[in-house]
């Protein structure tokens, strides 16, 4: 009884996870500028990954594989925002100071004045620690 409920639940989670990841990849291809693509990519990294790993955890049963999957989940949970923030910050310092074109140009002056504070890598380092 419990087994079949778990199997159905894990199938649903795996299917939903696959759906969210494919939508993220579609967004990665379709969105017009770098920062929008980053939102699509963060979708595959958050809910897509959680659902897939969670679905696998439900089928794993008690034991070491469950622990390792949980470790992978925790690791993805903590590193994906750090990598995303590092990517955005690095893009800000290099050539993509603004999301080029599109609706965001009206904020252009605001952003340039904001990003002119020089490179500062401390934020990336401290984001690592949480």
């Amino acid at each position, binding site marked *: 009884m419990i087994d079949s409920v778990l199997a159905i639940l894990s199938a649903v989670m795996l299917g939903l996870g696959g759906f*969210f990841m494919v939508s*993220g990849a579609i*967004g990665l291809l*379709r969105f017009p500028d770098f920062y*929008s693509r980053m*939102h699509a990519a963060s*979708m595959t990294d958050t809910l897509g990954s959680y659902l897939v790993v969670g679905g696998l955890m439900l089928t794993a049963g008690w034991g070491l594989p469950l622990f390792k999957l949980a470790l992978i989940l925790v690791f993805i949970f903590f590193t994906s925002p750090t990598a995303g923030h590092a990517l955005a910050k690095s893009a800000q310092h290099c050539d993509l100071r603004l*999301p080029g074109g599109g609706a965001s140009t009206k904020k252009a002056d605001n952003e340039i004045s*904001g990003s002119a504070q020089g490179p500062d890598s401390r934020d990336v380092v401290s984001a690592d620690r949480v």
Partner: protein
Amino acid sequence: MKTDNRGRADRADAHYSLYLVVVLSVIWLGNSGHYSPLLLTFGVVSVALVVWIGRRMQVVDGESQPFHLSLRLLAYYGWLLRKIVESNIKVAACAWKGPRAISPVSGRVPCRLESDLSRVIYANSITLTPGTVTVSLDDGEVLVHALTESGLAELREGEMEGRVARLEQP
């Protein structure tokens, strides 16, 4: 995190080192799966080495292991998970509708949090919810890029900030 009071700082140091030893040992035991004396010795040596290096780097403190917040952090992450699900559904809808459904904006959101830890948790949570990304974290404000106007407006309302602020209240 370095306080003037040396004695208290030392005790807190020992506390956090102990936490680190426990966490690292659990990771070693969980990942190894072999419990022969030789491998357990290797485990003890590695844990000791990592704790020694960590203390030398002065990263063994309440910032790297916020255990004093653990219960509240769990509740907070539960709430955050619900936000993540909601914003995932929004962004997925945008992805299928195509580029016309989105209106990327960026702007500065004021951040009145005081300690480094809560500011990093706040910035991390913003990045973790799809649809908003922290681009930089300065004194008193965060530069956020959002996929739609509503995402930025929601951050400006300050519900997430309020919850992060309540994490560290006594």
